[in-house]
């Protein structure tokens, strides 16, 4: 963990030093890629379909929802928190969108806005619960709202999925530019925005500070509560955005959408090198974590692995991916 941030910090190191440590520098900078590359090579050898453009676009498309949720999840984890409610927020946002557009006939463009807004508001609630009630850990507030939002999604819809979304709403999750899925482009754009946000804005740096040492952050005059509220709001917003992509992918808004998605998102963040204890983690690492999960699922499907074996393999690879990273860092010292 620690070494990684160090490396990130060393992004600005003098040129001559960079040259000296050139290989190491690159190897470490792109270290989180190691697992992904090894995995990809293995799959390319095992399955002839893996490297086809068509399949690579599958992966791009399939990774996008988890990638968006993971980028959102990175924020709470950076503050040494967690957001268990993202799957439920996703479901809640999309069914509300379904109700207002499909059932009430609101213009689809506004529907997009609603989907994001509901996500953000749900996240805001998480943030307010955590900070205003002074709950000891967001595990509680978000475990609670995970149930609440799921329940609300079921109640609103009478447990029935909603279909028949307009193309405008489906666009993000469905369309391609050339052969590249719009959802993947979205992921890249969001990643860049979040990267800048986290590394180049005060709030972004505060997020790291809070995760690194909450008391020191408070004493340094950082508005801890306000930053935390932003963090959970953004996490909710990303869940809403993930929901938008899901609508497009499935042309449906089901109240049981997103079940267990929080686990995949957390896994991506951690595989990507973030620390549960806060203060350490990057957008790029998270993105690679999400790709590892997507590539793995895709590859196992291509190979026709049966579910039970898939489950075992996925479990093993999660551990291995992190272990590769541990080894890499240890060898560095």
């Amino acid at each position, binding site marked *: 963990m620690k070494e990684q941030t160090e490396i990130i910090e060393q992004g600005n190191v003098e040129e001559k030093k960079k040259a000296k440590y050139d290989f190491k520098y690159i190897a470490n900078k792109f270290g989180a890629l190691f697992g992904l590359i090894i995995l990809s090579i293995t799959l390319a050898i095992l*399955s002839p379909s893996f490297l086809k453009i068509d399949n690579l676009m599958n992966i791009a498309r*399939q990774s996008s929802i988890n990638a968006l949720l993971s980028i959102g999840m990175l924020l709470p984890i950076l503050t040494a928190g967690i957001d268990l409610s993202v799957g439920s927020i996703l479901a809640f946002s999309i069914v509300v969108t379904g109700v207002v557009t499909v059932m009430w006939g609101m213009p689809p463009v506004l529907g997009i806005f609603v989907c994001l807004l509901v996500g953000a508001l749900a996240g805001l609630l998480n943030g307010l619960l955590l900070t205003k009630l002074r709950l000891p850990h967001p595990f509680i507030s978000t475990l609670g709202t995970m149930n609440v939002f799921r329940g609300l999604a079921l109640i609103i*819809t009478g447990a029935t999925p909603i279909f028949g979304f307009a193309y405008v709403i489906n666009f993000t999750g469905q369309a391609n530019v050339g052969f590249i899925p719009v959802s993947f482009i979205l992921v890249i754009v969001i990643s860049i925005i979040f990267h800048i946000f986290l590394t180049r804005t005060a709030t972004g740096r505060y997020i790291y500070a809070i995760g690194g040492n909450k008391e020191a952050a408070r004493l340094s005059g950082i508005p801890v509560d306000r930053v935390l509220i932003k963090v959970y709001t953004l996490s909710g917003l990303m869940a809403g955005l993930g929901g938008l992509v899901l609508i497009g992918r499935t042309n449906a808004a089901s*109240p049981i*959408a997103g*079940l267990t998605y929080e686990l995949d998102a957390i896994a991506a963040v951690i595989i990507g090198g973030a620390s549960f204890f806060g203060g350490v983690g990057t957008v790029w690492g998270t993105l690679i974590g999400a790709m590892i999960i997507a590539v793995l699922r895709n590859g196992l499907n*291509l190979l026709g692995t049966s*579910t039970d074996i898939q489950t075992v393999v996925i479990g093993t690879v999660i551990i291995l991916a992190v272990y590769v990273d541990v080894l890499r860092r240890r060898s560095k010292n």
Partner: protein
Amino acid sequence: GSSSITNSSNEGNEKKSTEETKADNLKIGVVLMTLSSEYWKIHMAGAQDAAKELGVEIEILGPAEETLYEQQVKMVEDLISTKVNGLVVTPSLPEAMLPALQKAHDANIPVVLVDANVNEFEDRVSFIGTENYEAASKGGEYISDQLNDGDKVLIVRGQMGAKVHDERTEGFQAALESKNIEFIVQDAQSDRVKAVNIVENVLTADPDIKVVFATSDEMALGSFKGLENKDSTHIPLIGFDGTPDGLQAVVDGQMLANIAQDPYRMGYLGVESAVKAIKGESVEKRIDSGAQVYTKDNVEQRIQEIEGYLNN
């Protein structure tokens, strides 16, 4: 299924299969709702047997849980990438599957839908199955005689919002509509222990429950334990799925009846129809694989059938 219309995409597929693949080198992709339950294992056995008999290669995928409908979509997409010659899909959220199925169709891959239909997907080769709704209402009809106006019935169901359980619940309720029954519906999330707990708790508050219906055998077997714990095994219990354990429970008198579709047959017919479609043979657009309420009277025979399926 009443009409027998020849598959419209036949010709296209025929060309493709003669060009690119030899008839005996076909690969069929099957995507089930999940692979981690007994019901779907039986389904899988049917599909595998069909593949073996027809000499085609088969790849069967399914998510870890029925609720993970988006993963099913991914599996269909991935199978399209591997260039399967035909697809058999049992969509757990049918409408969500539509874009992926369309993609398959665009890639000239014939699609057979099994167990749950996607109404909007006109290009399907066939829909094979019994609607869960109808099957469940058969169960309701069966028990209808034993219920009086205003009686209380407990339904132990799986995850709310999961289409299969929604339909089973609704079908059962619909069959008893005229009786003005008070339904207590509780979600046990397909977990056996939760079913035990629910039955215990509901019977504590409402000892005068007249019938218990569980929307899967896993929960039905749990419900029986709950009844047993409350010394209420006299309350008739109806299960759903017709798994070996569920049928055995009928033999043992633990369940009054078990509603069973025929997963083995569905699995078999699904692959068979897909192969037919690839070869350009005609397939009925709608095949009813049947559903049956099994009671003490007819269960033994069914058990033998199932054993036959699973042991060959």
